[in-house]
């Protein structure tokens, strides 16, 4: 049994006097223990909403969540608040995109780490505090004993994200969800944080869902990658297969729009044309059709299904041909 099984997860936002927004539209994927799974897609494709739905962090009103999220065999979507709170922070941890706004500005860092230890491991205040210092040390924050009493605004962006990681990993969860953990950081810091995350989850055998819009991030650390478009998964493949032989035109477009180390000098990056506002509803065909270079007649009328195709899952009527040199990609 997989550690996490997401089945047909849909999230619909309903506001009075407005069309409902289908943010997540029936997605399914598994995460095995210790595995790192990527969730990739452009802004607005529903990555954050997916992660919040798994964690039970969506607002309680104005949102319909359906489908199933099963964690170690427990259905999370129908868990009572109390039971859910017993698992969040202990078995499931989450790192958020913006480390500054995600930390409480008026509570010392030490308390924000210690409180999760006190909650789930029933440590005394003193024990929790010394363990918090230990954690800060592990995430690479120098002089941890002093940092415990500092406030988020006194830390640099990278340090704050390290502190958030320390919080999320404090109780050695089985699953960590990282929602664009590096987007708000300087480029130089981004690599450090990614390395730290990779190291920590490997050390503790924690499964990781890595959410990002940046395929470059996924390339370095994911075992399997889910590419999302318009609230649905359009391609899922093992990392190597995805990078060397992307089949969905959207995946292909994402790859062509990032710099590659093995690209010939002077080769231009090709952005995907158009933007999400051009989407057509999935019900009328393929949402990506208006932006797709491969679009053919059925793409405008028949909704493509997610089907198995040579070891991967693909949702496309007219996929990119497998290049003959497949397997030679270097990253």
């Amino acid at each position, binding site marked *: 049994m997989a550690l996490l099984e997401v089945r047909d997860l849909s999230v619909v936002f309903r506001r009075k006097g407005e069309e409902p927004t289908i943010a997540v539209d029936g997605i399914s994927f598994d995460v095995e223990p210790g595995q790192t799974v990527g969730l990739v897609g452009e802004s607005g494709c529903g990555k954050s909403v997916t992660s*919040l739905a798994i*964690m039970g*962090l969506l607002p309680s009103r104005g949102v319909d969540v359906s489908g199933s999220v099963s964690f170690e065999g427990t259905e999370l979507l129908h868990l009572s608040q109390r039971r*859910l*709170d*017993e*698992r*969040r*922070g*202990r078995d*499931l*941890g*989450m790192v*958020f995109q*913006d480390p500054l*706004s*995600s*930390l*409480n*500005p*008026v*509570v*010392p860092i030490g*308390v924000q780490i210690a*409180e*999760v230890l006190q*909650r*789930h491991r029933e440590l005394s205040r003193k024990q929790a505090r010394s363990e918090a210092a230990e954690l800060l040390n592990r995430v690479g924050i120098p002089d941890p004993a002093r940092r415990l009493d500092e*406030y988020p*605004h*006194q830390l640099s962006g990278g340090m704050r994200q390290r502190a*958030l990681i320390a*919080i*999320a990993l404090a109780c050695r969860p089985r699953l960590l969800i990282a929602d664009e953990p590096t987007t708000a950081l300087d480029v130089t810091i981004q690599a450090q944080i990614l390395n730290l995350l990779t190291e920590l989850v490997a050390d503790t055998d924690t499964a990781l869902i890595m959410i990002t819009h940046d395929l470059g991030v996924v390339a370095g650390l994911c075992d399997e990658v889910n590419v999302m478009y318009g609230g649905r998964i359009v391609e899922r493949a093992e990392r190597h297969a995805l990078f060397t032989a992307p089949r969905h035109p959207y995946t292909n477009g994402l790859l062509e729009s990032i710099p590659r180390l093995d690209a010939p000098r002077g080769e231009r990056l090709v952005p995907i044309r158009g933007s999400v506002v051009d989407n057509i509803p999935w019900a009328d065909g393929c949402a990506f059709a208006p932006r797709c270079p491969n679009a053919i007649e059925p793409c405008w009328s028949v909704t493509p299904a997610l089907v198995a195709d040579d070891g991967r899952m693909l949702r496309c009527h007219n996929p990119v041909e497998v290049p003959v040199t497949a397997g030679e990609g270097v990253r």
Partner: protein
Amino acid sequence: MLRYTIRRVLQLALVVLVLSVLLFAWLRALPGGPVSALLGDRGTAESRAQLREALGLDDPIFVQYFAFLGRALTGDFGTSTGVSPGKPAMELFLERFPATIELSIAAIVIALIGAIPLGYLAARRRGGWFDNASVVGSMIGISIPIFFLAFLLKYLLAIKLGWLPTGGRQSAGLDATRVTGFFVLDGLLTREWDASLDALRHLLLPALALSSIPFAVIFRITRASVLDVMDEDYVRTARSKGLAKRIVRDRHILRNAMLPVVTTVGLQTGALLSGAVLTETVFSWQGVGQALAVGFERKDFPVLQVVIIAAAMAYVLVNLIVDLSYAAIDPRIRTAGKVG
């Protein structure tokens, strides 16, 4: 923090100085004046002139002002001419000030312990019947004229139902020992429980009336602030940790939501004096608000000057305390202060 406090105290001195000039000039520009107030229509030209001279009203206004300032700096604000003729204005003020403080503290305490939990609950149940009802209630609280509310409370609970006394600070027959001038506290200090209880019963209605505006304002700010804070990322982080509800509420929501509330409490405390004038009048509460009302009627310059200047000082001081406690809650301000 110390330097900040010193700077604020100097600001206070400047504010009070400017205020004293404006106040002095303004009072003397009012029609009437203490002579007409004292003598009414009966005074002869001669007796008027005598009185004017005795009160020093014939000197040029700036001479009068500097004479006043010189004496005021030594604590001498002159003798009352109307509220309690012959009594030094400062003495009168000191006698009455505790009454107003007691009333104001009671009003603010009622507002705080009532409005903050209600504001939190309303925010958590946004759009529900409780939220809607309390928002309407707070609108009534803000818009109801305070003297009307005071009369209403007095009429219903004191006169009609007889549950509480109609006015004054303590029943006449009680021979209570005075220590601080705060009657409820005095009773506790001297273990005269009955005196304390009696003072509390007298205090309840005027304090309720006076608390109506701060109550409503603090409620609304708390509600709005909690609504804002609930949507913050750090509250989501707190939830992602599976923390107990109580900790999410107190440490993560309320501690942040209190920042704007603290500022409001300061401003509202300052605004209490205007409410106290009306409340004290309705409930014959012998405080400075009532002295102010009578002082205006009888053009009692010394009493008006001491009361208004003291009120301004109290206002600035309260807001200094508020700013300091703001810094105590918000570390971002504290550390900024260290650098600057």
